[in-house]
């Protein structure tokens, strides 16, 4: 499965939901499908996208929050999975695109390439719903199930280590930040 196809497969569900992504390929690919004011791309601070999603989910319990994370990023904040599980925001769906590598900085393998199981780690941290999927059908089904389940879910989507040709887009970081905040507060 390609990450871009996975994002395309669920894009329609993102229209009214709060979306936070990590930097790099995920941010560029989601923007290539169409930016929306309710999308925020955390273009650095690796590991903190899930924490940011938690802060939003606790502050806006009436909104559903989607975090698009990556294996390299979540490996930098595994402790954050225990915090997510502890507060168990039922309005948060946490998707980890696992390409088993740090794609944007040379494609070096992460620990998931040698067997570290992120869904297993999430489940052991106490996340109530977890899944690992590796086909587009399984991913869209797992994502739609998570939206309907009304409980904290981590979906690890195994994807190919391919990305866009460029990572910098014409959306400035601060423009994104203030537009997103205004959309969240309205």
């Amino acid at each position: 499965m390609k990450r871009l196809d996975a994002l395309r497969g669920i894009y329609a569900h993102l229209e009214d939901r709060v979306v936070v992504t990590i930097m790099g390929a995920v941010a560029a690919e989601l923007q290539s499908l169409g930016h929306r004011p309710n999308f925020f791309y955390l273009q650095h601070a690796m590991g903190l996208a899930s924490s940011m999603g938690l802060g939003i989910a606790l502050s806006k319990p009436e909104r559903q929050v989607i975090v698009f994370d990556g294996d390299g990023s979540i490996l930098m904040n595994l402790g954050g999975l225990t915090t997510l599980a502890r507060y168990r925001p039922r309005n948060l769906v946490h998707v980890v695109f696992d390409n088993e590598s740090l794609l944007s900085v040379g494609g070096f393998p992460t620990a998931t390439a040698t067997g570290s199981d992120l869904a297993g780690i999430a489940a052991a941290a106490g996340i109530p719903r977890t899944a690992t999927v590796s086909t587009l059908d399984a991913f869209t089904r797992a994502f739609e199930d998570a939206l309907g389940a009304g409980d904290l879910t981590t979906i690890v989507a195994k994807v190919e280590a391919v990305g866009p040709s460029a990572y910098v887009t014409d959306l400035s970081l601060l423009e994104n930040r203030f537009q997103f905040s205004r959309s969240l507060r309205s």
Partner: protein
Amino acid sequence: MPVSTTSSRAVYDALKASGVRLMSALPETWLVHLIRMAEEDPEMTLVRLAKEEEGVGISAGAHLAGVRSAMLMQNHGFLASINGIVSCAQLYHIPLLMLISYRGEFGERDPWQTEGGGVTEDVLRALRIPFSSLDRVDQVAPRIAKAQTLALSANKPVALLLCRDLMWEEA
């Protein structure tokens, strides 16, 4: 435990008065009363962290959603949060109210706190984070209010150092 209840109450009340409704915290001796007060307050969302840097992301999310927050941590927790502060809060102009217990100052008896104590202020200066010390209880309310005002007007992190003379009552 000679952690000052009076000073902790003054800090907590000042945070509430400045509109803080979410606190992230990682326990440390000087913060025990503050964390308990947050825990017992139905108007406060307390997020207990595994590591302090998570708190930067949580506060950033809360701010973007319109909720005022504060981070309670030791100075070693501040040192552990630096990349988050720089590449989330500063990069994205997020107001961040950090209350940092300032271990390792004059009077510190724990040898393991002394290195972090020696670098805290220099690191805050290097990061261009405005900061002020709280040594006496009468400073608490006005300085917390002013720190919050600056954080919100400048959209940037600010820090208050909770000092030994404020937090610790020698037996």
